[in-house]
């Protein structure tokens, strides 16, 4: 940060993008939305998962998605809009097939995250919250993603990309651009942002068994304990 830029004028805030009314929500989606609402003791609890599902279908929180959620839950579209604009994972406009996140909260930023964001931004030719013209990538400057022992951290479609370096970032983007198989360091094979959103809505993609049990840093303490013969005291269970 140069210390100078500070956004203070917000011409487009307050609403989802109403200029594009398109939707791919069909009867199947509506049935799935209703099923989500039925999972909870009170239907409105399903709103966050429902909006994830809307994103998986429409690539964003679409006007139609808002209205359908409102109707299913018996609340006003304004109330849904209030929720949809509160949470950062809900997009107002279509993003890329792959949604790339670079963590620039203090620790990651200091350890190289700022430089990675510059690099990724330069390579993709877009700034944060923008999408490449080919619809392949969108970029987000993300806040702390609970992977600090793997800093600096990036994400693709909310999969961990740990211990990033400029070289790894370069290859990651090249591979994704070329549709080569990319695997998360602590997750599954990268699919797409929309497929990720469907999992977050609660619809499994069957990939839970992919990836390791834990990353190297997660295992460090356990490994040192094993090496040193340290353990918790013996309890009744043992």
């Amino acid at each position, binding site marked *: 940060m140069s210390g100078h830029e*500070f956004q203070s004028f917000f011409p487009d805030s307050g609403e989802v993008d*109403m200029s594009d009314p398109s939707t791919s929500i069909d009867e199947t989606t509506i049935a799935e939305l209703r099923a989500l609402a039925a999972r909870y003791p009170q239907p409105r609890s399903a709103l966050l998962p429902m909006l994830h599902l809307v994103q998986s279908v429409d690539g964003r929180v679409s006007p139609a998605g808002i209205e359908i959620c409102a109707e299913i839950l018996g*609340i*006003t579209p*304004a*109330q849904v809009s209030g929720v949809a604009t509160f949470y950062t994972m809900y997009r107002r406009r279509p993003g890329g097939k792959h949604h790339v996140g670079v963590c620039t909260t203090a620790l990651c930023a200091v350890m190289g995250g700022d430089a990675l964001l510059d690099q990724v931004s330069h390579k993709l030719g877009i700034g944060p919250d923008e999408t490449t013209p080919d619809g392949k990538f969108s970029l987000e400057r993300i806040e702390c993603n609970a992977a600090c022992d793997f800093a600096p951290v990036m994400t693709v479609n909310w999969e961990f990309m740990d211990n990033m370096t400029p070289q790894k970032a370069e290859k990651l983007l090249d591979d994704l651009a070329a549709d080569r198989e990319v695997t998360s360091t602590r997750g599954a094979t990268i699919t797409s942002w929309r497929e990720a959103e469907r999992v977050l809505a609660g619809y499994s993609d069957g990939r839970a068994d992919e990836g390791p049990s834990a990353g190297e840093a997660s295992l460090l303490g356990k490994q040192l304990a094993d090496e040193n013969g340290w353990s918790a005291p013996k309890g009744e269970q043992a």
Partner: protein
Amino acid sequence: MSVIAKAGQDVAAVDTITVTIDGIEVAVPKGTLAIRAAELVGIAIPRFCDHPLLDPVGACRQCMVEVPDAGNGRGFPKPQASCTLEVANGMQIKTQHTSAIAAKAQTGMLELLLINHPLDCPICDKGGECPLQNQALSNGAGESRYQGVKRTYPKPVPISAQILLDRERCVLCARCTRFSEQISGDPLIALVERGALQQVGKYADDPYDSYFSGNVVQICPVGALTSTSYRFNSRPYDLVSTEVTCEHCAAGCTLRSDQRHGVVRRRLAAINPAVNEEWNCDKGRFAFVSGRGEDRLTTPLVRRDGELKPASWAEAIDAAVTGLKVAGDKVGVLTGGRLVVEDAYGYAKFARTVLGTNNIDFRSRPIGAGEAAFLAERVAGRTLNDAVTYADLETAGTVVLVGLEAEEEAPLVFLRLRKAVRKKGLAVKVIAARLSNGSSKLNAELISTVPGDEAAALRGLELPAGAVIVVGERAALAAGALTAAAEVADAAGARLAWIPRRAGDRGAIEAGCLPNLLPGGRTVADAAARVDVAGAWEVESLPTAEGLEAPAMLAAAVDGQLNALVVAGLEPVDFADAAAVRAGLDQVGFLVSLESRASEVTERADVVFPVALIEERSGTFWNWEHRPGAVGQVIRGTGAPMTDLRVLAALADGLGTPLGIRTTAQAAAELAELGGYQPAAPAKAAKASTRKAAAKPAAKAAGSDGEQLVKLSTWRQLIDGGRGQDGESAMAATAKPTVARISPALAERLGAADGQLVTISAAAGWYTMPVAISADMVDGTVWLPTNSAGTGLGELGVVFGDEVALSLGGEE
């Protein structure tokens, strides 16, 4: 020093605890918030989000106080928001007056509220009455330490045709969103975005069209919400305020009417805890310009050679006196429902003592058989002490609504019911053809009823003790419904309330503007009552025969039984059969009209007297509870025309029987002296209504061309084609659309899809409008608004409960 707070209206014992605020001890009910307790000892803690009628939110953090002892010997380590802090026994509270910590917290908060606030006070509507401005002046720093950039947005954003939003000015107190969600139940605005970008928003093309939207302008503690009609209109300190009672319905809201240079600029809800608390509806707030049109009558008119010509007052009075002398006692008096009680009393006395007739009726609307008797037995002569009140509704436990669509017809009754539903577990049952949006917001149980079957529905009720049955004026149109309501209430030990629609209706009954009623609930049939009133009026006797009801008067005018009509403000379309009204007005021998604006009556009249607008005079409206509400004179010295009472007094003088009263104050005093009256024997039933059932739509045979014969359900929508709303276009733009509602089953039989045009026809005519298929509509029934744009049911000659023909298609 010690102060004992009043425990409010509840006399029931409450747990009282003692707290000390800035060294002053005060006893308050348990559960009292610190900010309220401070108010009781005269300490004003600054605040923005706090509002006594909204749920506490603690958002603005302006009202911080120090609590060195929470009542348990320990203090809070941090300052506390006094708007969310319930006091505890023995609690010590130090406000900005005695605590440096509280004072700094408040000053600091004010600074934070101001860093992003624009410095546009000189052009802001709120400037001069702005809590933020006031507190910045009284508690704020002289200079800003903020060197950053202020947050800006495009502005203003219309959140409805009537309400505009300046997001930059907003302090995010959430009063408006809490009002819309909690009080009126219209969460069409919500907080959107988050953090520093949080703002009030609506959804796309779903505007904040709430009947109560104007309240958010009033409770906004800054100038973020303004109204289209008042924006940039006046400075608050240039306005002269007068307290009035709203003239639009029988709710009886106390309003503050603000004028400048002899023109009313705006109206606000005044504080009247017993009635409207601190709210009002948009009609009461915004619809006050109807008297400013070119149709305003400014001089008397007399018909000469078939044409109405301006005349002097003396000429007009002479002409009217001459005409009325010829008519003798064959005169009818139609007063309408818009008169203050003093004027209504003037007409009642004028009819009896000057004209010598009981032909007087205020009901410029469909009338039901037995209604007048019901009004005499169950409504008239009650006082506030023995009538159902707002407070009674709030504590009823169960309220049944029959023939009343509260949100549309008595909006503040609706708000009170909603409050009781939210706060006191009130159960509402609605006997109606559909579950309206308003009923949904009351969580009401719909007793789905085909219009006309209300009596059976009532008799099927099982009511818990303490319940209240509320009947609207439309209930009179369902055979036996009023009787059933009274009997069911009596049997269940429930209470009964009648809520009319117009502001003057309740007073008109007390004043004696019914053919069977004298003032104070005395019946015409009661000889002792007649003697009583005659004595008070210093006349030998009063006419003994009950008079004609309004439709009968109009019919009698056609067939020559009546020679003259004296008519105050009314519209033919409001009657069951507009054509019959016009025929009566056309064919009566002599027609005197007292009006403030040209109307269908004035254009037919022989003599027209221009009378004052409500803002140009004083008076009293008695609301549905029988509670008097003063109407202050807002505009003075504008050469205002006379009151109805003044004109009647002049006519009486000319007719040789002085009225004895000519000022509002005199009329009020005389009516008060006359007082109520307990009849010696039960009143006899008044004669049945003379309204004939509307002719069957016989033009086409039922079933032909897919036509369906259905029952008509209807009510007036709050914002509609009523003339009192003329000239207020922004409010009109927030009105509900005109649609015909039918059940899915009826739609299927009709072959109609949502939004398609349907035609509703009766003998006197037809209307075409889009159809709305509503799952909650009872089958075999069509619902139409009574008097919305493009529909005046009086023109069709049909009323609630009549049969109409419904067919697909038509031309708008």
